[in-house]
């Protein structure tokens, strides 16, 4: 009894005073390195954009494919993972009465492993020993150190996942029969997905290492590729789920409203966890060695993820409308004016959501087998994920940073930095309209992705793409300005903004909200269903790939 009282007093104290210094330092470190990664990744992105437009010729010591490998890994894996972990550890600390020393320690060990892993990955890329892209498809073979780095990155993520599980389990033991607070529930979903989706890639890397070193002569190319996408596809959906957490819980608070049904929010999380991993096959729609019937089954597996997203679209607009009408908003659309468009903490995630309308629609289109054949491996796809990952996820992360960083550093968001944030959002939106827009268009005309500037020996068709590629460079330049503003804002809020209290914005439920059923807390059951769905998607094709495998491939280093 005494301890529970003390516990709840401590929880209240934490909520009043903000994160404990130790917890704040942990999250700040993750966020700081995350945004430095964004800065480097952005510079590399600009180099690519200018090169592809034919404006910038790279010096002989820097190869386009080195740049692209680094850009991909830094932004799809490192920037996003570090942000997500920093954010959710702040959530766990805030929601669950401070981090357990053990969980905090695991997150620090995870951080160390990831930093060392990152160095192991980056050095071979810089030395031109690993131009294999973030997908590192065998039989392209990087220097073995590159794969050791990947192992460390994965183990680092596992450390953080287990730290989070320990933290949540501990809270549940102390609060029997209660629901885990909603943001911590999101955190649980995210770490469950991170852990399970990284198992296939870990298996792949353990197949690759002995082969890259030379102990084993050949490798099963198709199997590696499939294991990769079970991970790679889930990864981007995890970043999306992270963004969604802020849409459901944080954005309603910022606009002065209540959040959408707690039950439906949790159902969306559960669906995204259960349905996600088999989606990886939509990266292999035009591969040989996978039967048409399997591919057809997987259209469903992929499109099913669209359903929770469409539920989310409804939920968000319902919250916006309700809040705006409560504030006196009228008309069919005029209530829109009642939303706080001048507040970057709202504007950035709002633009992120809007970007998901074309992003998600494009995703549904390219999941259908025949349309995929038009878009696959063209710049269309690059346009697609700069909308979904580079805007929907990234811009929500930016929006979060304007309250999360000052909350952690015990400073405040000044009107000046808020204005800067609004300008940042405008640059990002304009940049993406140009860049992602041009990529989509020129992709439909046939311009391939992952290809440095080329006219294919002055081929007329290839030359006709050049005008569109100029827009790609224009957009990339605007985005680079956006990156600079964003990184400046984060550093300012972390170290220089005026001292003060910043709230961790968590919206309340509606007063008349119905009670959430307790089965949503049964993670054991959710995970079993997830594994069954994964088995449905993967057992048949994997068995086919292993049993009917062709003779394997030796390593190649064609760079």
């Amino acid at each position: 009894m005494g301890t529970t009282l003390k516990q709840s007093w401590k929880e209240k104290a934490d909520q009043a005073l903000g994160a404990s210094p130790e917890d704040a330092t942990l999250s700040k470190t993750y966020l700081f390195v995350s945004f430095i990664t964004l800065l480097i990744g952005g510079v590399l992105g600009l180099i690519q954009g200018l090169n592809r437009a034919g404006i910038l010729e790279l010096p002989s010591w820097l190869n386009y494919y080195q740049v692209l490998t680094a850009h991909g890994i830094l932004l799809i894996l490192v920037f996003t993972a570090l942000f997500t972990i920093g954010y959710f550890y702040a959530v766990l600390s805030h929601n669950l009465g401070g981090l357990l020393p053990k969980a905090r320690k695991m997150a620090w060990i995870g951080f160390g492993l990831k930093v060392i892993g990152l160095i192991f990955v980056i050095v071979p890329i810089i030395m031109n020993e690993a131009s294999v892209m973030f997908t590192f498809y065998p039989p392209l073979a990087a220097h073995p150190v590159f794969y050791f780095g990947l192992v460390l990155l994965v183990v680092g993520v596992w450390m953080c996942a287990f730290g989070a599980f320990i933290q949540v389990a501990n809270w549940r033991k102390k609060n029997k029969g209660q629901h885990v607070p909603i943001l911590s529930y999101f955190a649980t979903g995210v770490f469950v997905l991170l852990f399970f989706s990284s198992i296939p890639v870990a298996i792949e890397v353990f197949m690759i290492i002995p082969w890259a070193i030379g102990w084993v002569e050949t490798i099963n190319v198709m199997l590696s590729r499939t294991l990769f996408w079970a991970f790679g596809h889930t990864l981007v959906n995890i970043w999306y789920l992270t963004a969604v957490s802020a849409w459901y819980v944080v954005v309603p608070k910022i606009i002065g409203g209540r959040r959408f049904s707690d039950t439906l929010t949790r159902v969306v999380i559960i669906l995204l966890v259960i349905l996600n991993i088999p989606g990886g096959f939509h990266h292999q729609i035009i591969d040989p060695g996978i039967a048409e019937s399997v591919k057809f089954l997987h259209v469903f597996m992929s499109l099913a993820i669209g359903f929770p997203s469409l539920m989310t679209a409804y939920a968000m607009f319902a919250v916006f409308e309700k809040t705006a009408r409560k504030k006196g908003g009228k008309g069919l659309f005029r209530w829109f004016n009642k939303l706080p468009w001048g507040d970057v903490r709202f504007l950035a995630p709002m633009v992120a959501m809007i970007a998901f309308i074309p992003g998600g629609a494009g995703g549904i289109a390219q999941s259908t087998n025949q349309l995929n054949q038009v878009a696959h491996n063209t710049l269309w796809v690059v346009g697609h994920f700069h909308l979904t990952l580079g805007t929907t996820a990234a811009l929500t992360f930016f929006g979060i940073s304007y309250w999360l960083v000052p909350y952690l550093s015990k400073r405040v968001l000044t009107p000046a930095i808020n204005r800067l944030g609004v300008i940042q959002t405008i640059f990002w939106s304009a940049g993406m309209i140009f860049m992602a827009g041009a990529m989509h268009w020129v992709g439909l005309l046939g311009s391939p992705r992952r290809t440095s500037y080329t006219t294919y020996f002055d081929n007329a068709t290839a030359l006709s793409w050049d005008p569109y590629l100029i827009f790609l460079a224009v957009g990339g330049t605007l985005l680079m300005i956006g990156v600079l503003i964003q990184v400046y804002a984060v550093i300012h809020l972390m170290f220089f903004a005026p001292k003060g209290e910043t709230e961790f914005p968590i919206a309340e439920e509606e007063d008349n909200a119905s009670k959430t059923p307790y089965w949503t807390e049964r993670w054991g059951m959710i995970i079993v269903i997830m594994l069954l769905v994964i088995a449905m998607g993967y057992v048949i094709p994997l068995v086919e790939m292993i049993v009917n495998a062709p003779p394997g491939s030796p390593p190649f280093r064609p760079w």
Partner: protein
Amino acid sequence: MKFHLDEKIWLIASFGVIIGMMLFTGYQTFVLGMGPPSHMETIDPQKVDETSPFDEPGLYQIGENEYEVVMTLQLFSFTPNEIEIPAGATVHFTLTSKDVTHGFQIAGTNVNAMVMPGHIQKITQTFTEPGEYLVLCNEYCGTGHQYMATTITVK
């Protein structure tokens, strides 16, 4: 759980879109025979030159205005290259890779297929419009990837 009427409509419509896309894909695949390239045959990637039909890559006429192209893809070229065919010809491409993963894309058409070592890939196209078509590799395969291209001339 209480659902509002408009929410029910939205969710049913969402489900409808997804199922509609599914049916559309299934119809195109199984009724119209427009499934994505998914050939299942395999080959020893280190013995492509000795394995039929890739021991003799080339353009073969197999019917009236119907052709088969047996083609190998390798760092950074297509064999055979610079193919010429008459307008209206239907061409069946039989493809494999001698080294890493490549892509086979013909700009301005829906021909797009992954070509992987150890696997034989097949895709068919009828070229009605005369002209010069750009064939390119759309999967990163090494430093010369941006030069991996050829043409098909339809006369």
